[in-house]
């Protein structure tokens, strides 16, 4: 019983971190239909900016977080104008893959050049170190904080995308850009805004998840499969789906590692196959075809 509880708590804690670093991809991939393999790169850039802001410039954690998100978004906007804009549309999937891989390579090389190949960290404030007791389990305070942040992100996004005209217009613009434009929807600005949202979320995830996925130049490539798994299981574009998927995968992974550590990896991917077999469109039927 205690074991189960332990697995559940650790699993949820891990799952929420997975959610927060993957949900940005769900936005770009599911809502904008851009197979943005550079998602990890944006997360990494966010993390590095935060690391730099906190360690070298000595800003407090919260400020560093905001600066990181803002700067990453600012840096990504020209990329949207110059590169992404040309590859929107599902006919371009392969071009998207190629372009975003290329972009990832460039960012990896750039980060490597600027910050060197060694691991970087974002120092945590006093407040977020230590542990919180949860019955017989102790979980790190930082993770509890991430869980909270994840929940807030979840609700905020859901409201934005499902309950506002912005969400409707965005989905319309993705569904059929030409018709949306003919209805007076300014698709370009909408894409720009959504792209900014996606990158902002990536950066947020990069910063908050840095304790688990340490920052180094290869971050951008190392974890992309993990992000894709969450989005695929959740159903691309579904915010609740991503959350459910992240939690499910977090728990599966934790259970596998705890119960049969020697076959942990095997267990994780076998579970992934089973889940996708049962829900071929993800938990919450994805928007991307």
């Amino acid at each position, binding site marked *: 019983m205690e074991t189960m509880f332990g697995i559940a708590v650790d699993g949820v804690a891990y799952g929420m971190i997975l959610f927060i670093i993957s949900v940005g991809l769900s936005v770009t991939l599911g809502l904008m239909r851009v197979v943005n393999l550079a998602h990890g790169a944006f997360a990494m850039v966010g993390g590095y900016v935060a690391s730099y802001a906190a360690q070298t410039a000595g800003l407090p954690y919260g400020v560093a977080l905001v600066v990181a998100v803002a700067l990453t978004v600012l840096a990504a906007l020209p990329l949207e104008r110059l590169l992404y804009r040309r590859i929107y549309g599902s006919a371009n999937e392969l071009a998207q893959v190629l372009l975003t891989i290329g972009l990832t390579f460039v960012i990896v090389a750039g980060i490597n050049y600027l910050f060197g190949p060694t691991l970087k960290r974002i120092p945590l404030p006093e407040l977020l170190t230590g542990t919180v007791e949860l019955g017989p389990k102790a979980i790190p305070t930082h993770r509890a904080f991430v869980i909270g942040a994840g929940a807030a992100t979840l609700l905020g996004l859901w409201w934005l995308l499902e309950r506002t*005209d912005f969400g*409707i*217009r965005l*989905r*319309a613009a*993705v*569904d*059929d850009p*030409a*018709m*949306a*434009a*003919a*209805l*007076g*929807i*300014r*698709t*370009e600005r909408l894409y720009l805004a959504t792209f900014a949202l996606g990158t902002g979320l990536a950066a947020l995830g990069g910063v908050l998840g840095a304790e688990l996925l340490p920052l180094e130049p290869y971050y951008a490539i190392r974890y992309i499969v993990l992000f894709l798994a969450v989005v695929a299981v959740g159903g691309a574009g579904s915010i609740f789906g991503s959350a459910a998927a992240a939690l499910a995968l977090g728990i599966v992974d934790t259970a596998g590692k705890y119960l049969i550590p020697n076959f942990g990896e095997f267990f994780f991917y076998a579970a992934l196959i089973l889940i996708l077999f049962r829900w071929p469109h993800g938990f919450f039927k994805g*928007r991307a075809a």
Partner: protein
Amino acid sequence: MPTDPGGKSPGSLEVADLRAGYGKTLILDGISFSVPAGGRLALLGRNGVGKTTTLATLVGQTTRHGGGIRLDGVELGGMSSSARAAAGLGYVPQTRDIFKSLTVEENLVTGLKGRPRCALEEAYTLFPRLGERRRNGGGDLSGGEQQMLSVARALLGKPTVLLLDEPLEGLAPVICDTLMAALSGLDMTVVLVEQQVDRALEFADRVVFLDRGRVVHAGPAAQARTDTALLERHLGVVLAA
């Protein structure tokens, strides 16, 4: 005619020597016509002569190679599609172009152009069918329902010029009646492309015939209706008495 004489209602459309196509392929080879504010123009012609292309060019979905499009004296040619919509164009494409992943209601919301949500009732009054299906996915609708949705979506934005590409296709005859009646009651400029020539001519006050990307005849609709030779020549059809 419903337009009040000297009325200031906007919506005069002027198309001059329009040349356009898809990429490098030229389909429209110098098309000119004009519709006064509140006027109704039927744009007719055989299969593949460029009717759809003409409307698509007006809303900015093709490659324009030359010529001008003026709405109340303002040149639209260089504007983006969305800016033209903001300037007052409304469009019902031949392929309907429903947002398949949005619900019926969400589809209608995209057409509101800033009007309050309660305006949606107008659409449901015109097509009660849509009201019944408002929570359905747009892609799940039947062919005719999609057509209604497409028309309703365009009407909700209260355009000054409405461009209709075969709006009756796939609609049951009774619904065609309803729709044509509703369109007749509207106070806006309309350009109509339609295969049901009799209904189109009944509705319009002027008619333009296209062939291979050119205007081959322009004149009053009433005259065309009775001119069987004209119809035979440009459409290959004979209207039932």
